[in-house]
Structure formats: structure tokens, C-alpha cells
């Protein structure tokens, strides 16, 4: 038997986010985390005493705190409780959700609180990411998380004008979403009329990756509370169920060494999606899902990844973007929250995707709520060297 039935169902019963911004001088790390913890407890109508276990995550070197959950106990409420700290790079937020789901489904804990945060303002993000690379083979070549290779690939495949326009179109759509999300860090008020200007004028970072196309560095925290079925139904009017999740990693350094255009390496996103859909019997993901919260660190990547996540062919993904089908009200709304490109507190970012997907299912997303009923949502995490975590969320327990 490949994938066993979940030991027991797990629902999201509480969600809390801080506002995301470039600076949070007014709070220290545990104080910032506490804001999201309080918000999530309030959302769930719980007190700290009701929580059995805490899962904490971010990246140590981004703030240079060793085992930060020790200090952060001042804000997380972990005192006297069981606690885990599980990390996976940029995917960490999604991994926190997977871990919380596993911990609750196992029967070991009834209510688990997942806490993701980052205070990127306090550290040096690009330096920190560069330190990922192997000191012998690669560290002198790495440019943080910035890469122009995806732009190069897409321009080669679809021609310069179409590719560049699709990337900026995606970016403008995300900004239009971010304007509706009061938590979003960057919301410029971009208009579609500016598309050609932005293609021409936005400063280039690496290759054809432009400043406007890259995600921000944000401070912020996100907290999601998970509970087993009976408890979830008792506590929450609208629990959102975690159906399944999958994590796929890839070794990057040596893959890049052996890069060969004729034999492209399979993408983790496509691989993860394929396996997840197969074991959950999802034949047409574009039809099945009502909303997708994608970890989109840059608009080039985002456009390309739509093809992988929905198992599309040729230029189907470009058409979705060009026809604005990924907008709120479109066929497959992507990131009604404004996405990572608007707000990126890295350790929280992927958990925000889960939180926002759950808010859409609950119908509690406020101004950025999509107008039609959301029954099935997909959330992705991205990190490390092309790592993927995909999570399926459901309104009804009927699969």
C-alpha cells in the first residue's frame, strides 16, 4: 500500500498574521511572533493553555540566533509545553504545516500551533543565502536567491517580447491583489497601462530579472493552529481540512554542473504535483482547484511554475496570465493575497500561503476574497535548491 489513510483528520482552526513590512523596529523577535500568536488564538477562540504542542521555524542564519526557539519562548507561549523546531529553508513555513498535520494526525497531540517568522531586516539575506553554497565548490559564485536563468529559458522558448510582457503582467496582477490585502508589505498600485514602461525601465538585477519582478524582504510572522477532527468541529465553525501534502527536494550544485539543455532535469514542482494528484485521484487540477496560493519569489519563476503545478503543456500557462485568468474573478485565481512578491518574511512565507488558502476556503479573506465559493485550495512552498512542498486544503471532509 503506497499511501495509507490518515490516522485521523486534521483541520485548521485558527489563523494569525502580523502585518508584513520592511522594518519592525518597535518589537524584538519574540514580541513580533507574539502578535501573530495572539491573533491566531483570538481567531480560534482559544487560550494558550489549550495548545498541546508548538512547532517553530525559520532560518537561523538570517538572524544569527542559534536555536532561536529558546529565546522566543517569551513570545511563543511554549513554556511548559511540548515543542518542535523543524526547518527546510524557504519551504519551512509549508513544512511547519506538514509537521503540525503529522503531529495532530498521529494522535500524539490534539491541538498544535505552527509558528513561522522572519525578521529579515535584522540580518543580511543575500549574504545569508549565499552561505548555503558549498564553501569549496560554489560559494564564490552564488548571488543569493537572485537568478536570471529562468528569464533566459523563457525568452529562448517564447521570444523576448512575449516572455518579458508575461512576467510583468503577472507582476502587475499580483500588485492589484496586494492592494486589497491590508497585511501586504508592498502594494504599489500598478496599472496595466504601465506594462510596457515597466518592461523597459525597471532596473535589472541579474540577467533579465528586474527589480520590480523580485520579491521583497519582509519582517513578519504567521501562526496557524491545527486540531484533530472532533476538537476542530467543536471549536471552529469553519474548520479547513488538510487533505494531503508532499515534500520534494533536489540536490542543486551537482545538477548545475551537469546542466545539459537537451536533457533537462525534471522539476520538483512538476514531480510533486504529479505524485500528489495521482495519489489523490485528481485528474484535472486546473478544474479541481478553486484557488492557488503559490510561493512566487519572482515573476519569471511564477509564470513558468504555473505550467508545472497544473501539469500544463506548451504555452497554456502564458495564456492564463495574458488573459488575466489568474486574477481574482478569473478561472484560476493565483495569490489573491498578493503573494510572495508582495510580502516575503521567509520563515513565515510558505505558512502564509496555507493561511491565505484557508482564509479563502473560510470566506474570511476580506477585500481579497474571491467571489465564487472555494472548496478546494492548493498551496505551495518553495525553498532551498528548488525544493517543493505542496498542500491540499478542503472545505468539506468528503474525499
Amino acid at each position, binding site marked *: 500500500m503506497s499511501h495509507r489513510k490518515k490516522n485521523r483528520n486534521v483541520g485548521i482552526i485558527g489563523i494569525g498574521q502580523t502585518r508584513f513590512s520592511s522594518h519592525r523596529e518597535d518589537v524584538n523577535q519574540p514580541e513580533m511572533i507574539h502578535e501573530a500568536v495572539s491573533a491566531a488564538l483570538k481567531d480560534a477562540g482559544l487560550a494558550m493553555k489549550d495548545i498541546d504542542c508548538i512547532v517553530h521555524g525559520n532560518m537561523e542564519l538570517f538572524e544569527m540566533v542559534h536555536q532561536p526557539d529558546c*529565546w522566543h519562548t517569551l513570545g511563543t507561549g511554549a513554556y511548559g509545553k511540548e515543542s*518542535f523546531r*523543524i526547518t527546510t*529553508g524557504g519551504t519551512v513555513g509549508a513544512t511547519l504545516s506538514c509537521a503540525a498535520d503529522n503531529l495532530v494526525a498521529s494522535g500524539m497531540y490534539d491541538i498544535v500551533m505552527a509558528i513561522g517568522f522572519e525578521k529579515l531586516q535584522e540580518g543580511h539575506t543575500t549574504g545569508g543565502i549565499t552561505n*548555503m553554497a558549498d564553501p569549496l565548490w560554489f560559494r564564490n559564485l552564488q548571488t543569493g536567491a537572485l537568478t536570471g536563468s529562468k528569464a533566459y529559458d523563457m525568452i529562448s522558448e517564447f521570444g523576448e517580447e512575449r516572455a518579458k510582457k508575461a512576467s510583468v503582467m503577472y507582476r502587475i496582477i499580483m500588485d492589484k491583489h496586494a492592494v486589497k490585502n491590508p497585511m501586504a508589505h508592498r502594494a504599489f498600485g500598478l496599472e496595466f497601462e504601465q506594462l510596457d514602461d515597466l518592461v523597459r525601465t525597471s532596473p535589472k538585477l541579474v540577467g533579465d530579472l528586474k527589480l520590480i519582478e523580485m520579491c521583497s524582504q519582509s519582517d513578519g510572522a504567521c501562526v496557524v493552529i491545527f486540531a484533530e477532527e472532533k476538537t476542530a468541529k467543536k471549536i471552529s465553525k469553519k474548520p479547513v481540512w488538510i487533505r494531503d501534502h508532499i515534500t520534494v527536494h533536489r540536490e542543486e550544485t551537482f545538477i548545475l554542473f551537469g546542466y545539459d539543455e537537451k536533457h533537462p532535469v525534471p522539476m520538483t514542482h512538476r514531480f510533486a504535483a504529479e505524485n500528489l494528484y495521482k495519489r489523490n485521484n485528481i485528474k484535472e487540477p486546473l478544474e479541481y482547484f478553486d484557488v492557488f496560493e503559490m510561493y512566487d519569489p519572482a515573476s519569471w519563476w511564477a509564470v513558468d511554475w504555473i505550467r508545472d503545478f497544473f501539469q500544463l503543456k506548451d504555452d497554456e500557462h502564458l495564456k492564463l496570465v495574458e488573459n488575466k485568468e489568474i486574477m481574482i474573478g478569473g478561472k484560476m485565481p493565483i495569490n489573491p493575497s498578493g503573494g510572495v512578491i508582495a510580502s516575503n518574511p521567509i520563515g513565515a512565507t510558505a505558512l502564509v500561503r496555507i493561511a491565505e488558502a484557508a482564509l479563502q476556503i473560510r470566506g474570511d479573506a476580506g477585500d481579497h476574497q474571491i467571489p465564487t465559493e472555494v472548496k478546494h485550495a492548493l498551496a505551495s512552498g518553495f525553498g532551498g535548491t528548488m525544493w517543493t512542498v505542496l498542500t491540499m486544503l478542503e472545505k468539506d471532509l468528503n474525499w
Partner: protein
Amino acid sequence: MSNRVALCAVAQIKNENDAWHARFQNMLHECFESIMTQTKVSFDMDKGIRNIITCSDDMFDARTISNNGITDVVGAQFRGEEKMSQESINGLGYAMSCIMSGHDDVILFMGHCKESQGESRRMVTNLTFDPFYCRPIGMDHLNVSAMQARAYMKKSGVSEEHLAKIVVRSRKNSKKNPNARDNKMVDEKEVMNSPLLADPIRELHYYPVTDWAYGMLLCTEERAREFTDNPIWITGYGSCMDSYFLGDKDLASNFSLKNASSRAYKMAGIKDPKKEINLFELSDQSAYQLPMWAEGVGIADEGKGGKWIEDGGMDKYNVNLSGGMLNGNPLLLGGAARAIECFLQLRGEAGERQVKGVKKALAQASYGPAAQHQAVVIMEK
């Protein structure tokens, strides 16, 4: 609980004082190959390993997202990999949940640490502290443990002589453990004359800098026989976090360990650990911690650690026959080392140090300043 979790195989390299010649990837790879050979497990998406849990540390590896550097050598190419960023023992708790949840059948659990790589292990642990109130004062795990040692020794009547006894015994036991770090044999006088590091902790009271890596294979009860004829069952897990600021807590109280162990006992259905558990592996980073943790897990009476040593408690309860953390395991991996010793003893594969009739064993480990977080695992034959 729906089912038992099986531990099917373990692998480790020898604990070394400075494995300068080996990359940590090499160290892990040795363990990885051993697990593959022992169990013939595959990475098939249906039947094999889909998820790997690792334990490592960004600071010791000097790499952001330390698990990023080991994806290939733990087999995580196009499989899931999640890093336990606390004590490795918590990785066992998490692995249990992955299996008991139904999400995974088989979990590979691997960890590495080269304490020798950094200029100073103490500098790393200084970074555990907040940058405002504690870090500038120079707090690190060693000088903070010294405060706990003073408080605990006073409370429980533990003397210099007792500490010397613990160290001498640890070294003797380690001689019988082929994977233990090679340390000089010492007598009690040498221990008591060894230089003070942070009063009352002396050099020989404190675990030495060590490099090590390990691997374990865990799976569901149903599938255990595919990988081994002799699975060991993990039946209990419990953990607890204490306050962060030293002044906020009673350093000698064992608050977090008492909670962690009672939670693990409850899960494993253990009423009287003294009678039901035959072997204990405690993470004694410093000698004072051995009787202190013995009190915490309930095999020494509260406040009587000194007398417990005198009465032969360490041998009576088969405590740290491996040599313990005190003989040398890297920070954060002590728990895995403890669990591996429990596994070997329960399987009857502990060689010269084998105890007869071990049916249940306990592994304990802590992390954080003054052992802020504690966790306990119960294993059964």
C-alpha cells in the same frame, strides 16, 4: 495510539575528536550505506523511503540551511527531507508522528555534526542568547551550566568526589564501546585536579569537542519485518520547554525533564520507571547532569542525587553504559547517541557492555541554555 513505531536499523561512525579529513557528507554517507546494506530499503515512491528527517545545525556547519548540503548523501534527491533543528532526540518524536499519522511508512533519520569545524563551540552557543540582555555579557552553554551545577549540587548534596566518580566511570564504560570517542583513562584525583573551566565545572566534568554522524531507519509495525528480524519499538515520547531567562526559573528544579518524562511514561503506559525500565541513557553534557537527570526521570529521589551516586544508583539502574554524552557526542546529537545505545542493548548487540534481559530502555536529551528543553524516548523489545 494506533500502532507501534519500529526502529529497524541504526548506523554510526566512531565518535572522533577531529575528523578533519572527512567532510560531513562523507560521514553521513558511511552511515547511509550501512542502513541500505542492513535493510535493503529502497526509495521507491510507493514502497520505499519518501521522507527523510535529518538533524544538523547551521552554526556548526557554517552553512545557511545546513540540510541543503546533504540532500544527495541522505537520498533526498526527489524525495522529501525535513530538518530537525533541535536535539536529535526530538527527531525521533517527529519521526513517530510521521509514521503514526499514516503519512509515511518508512522514515530515514540521519544526523551529523562536526563540532571541531568551528573555532569555538562556546561561541556558537553564545548565539543561543538574545542580543540585548544576555549575549553581550558573554553567556554561553558552559558558563550557564555552571550556574545550574552550583544550584543543583547544593540542593542534592552532590560533591566534587561524586562528580569525579561519574567521570571515571564514564571513561571506563566508554572503553567497552567501540564507537565511543577515544579518551584517556583517568582516576578520581585527576578529575578533581583538572583545571576549572567555569566554577564548579572542571575540564574533565565537561563533554569534549566531538565529530559524529548517525543513521536510523524507522517504519510502521506492519512493515518492520521487511527490514529486520529484530525490530525495536518506540512506544513513548514526551518533551517540555522551560523559561528562557535564567532568573525566571529554579535552575535545580528539573521542571522540563519531569514534564517530559511523565508525558513519555504516560504514552508508553509506564507507572514505575524504577521497576519497569531496565536501562537508562542520559545526556550528561556535564557530570553534574547525570544525577540531576536521574532525579528528573524518577530513578533518584528528589534532592538526593549525591546519596544516589553513593548508593550505586548508576550501576543499579544501568545508566550510561555507553560512556554517556560526557565521553563525547556532538551537541544536539547526544539524544541520537543515547537512543542508538538503547537500541543495541535491547537487541543484545552491545558487545562487552551488554546487560542481560533489557526489555525497556529510556533515552533522554536536552538542548538550550541550562537544558531549557528536555525530551525523553521510551524503547521496548
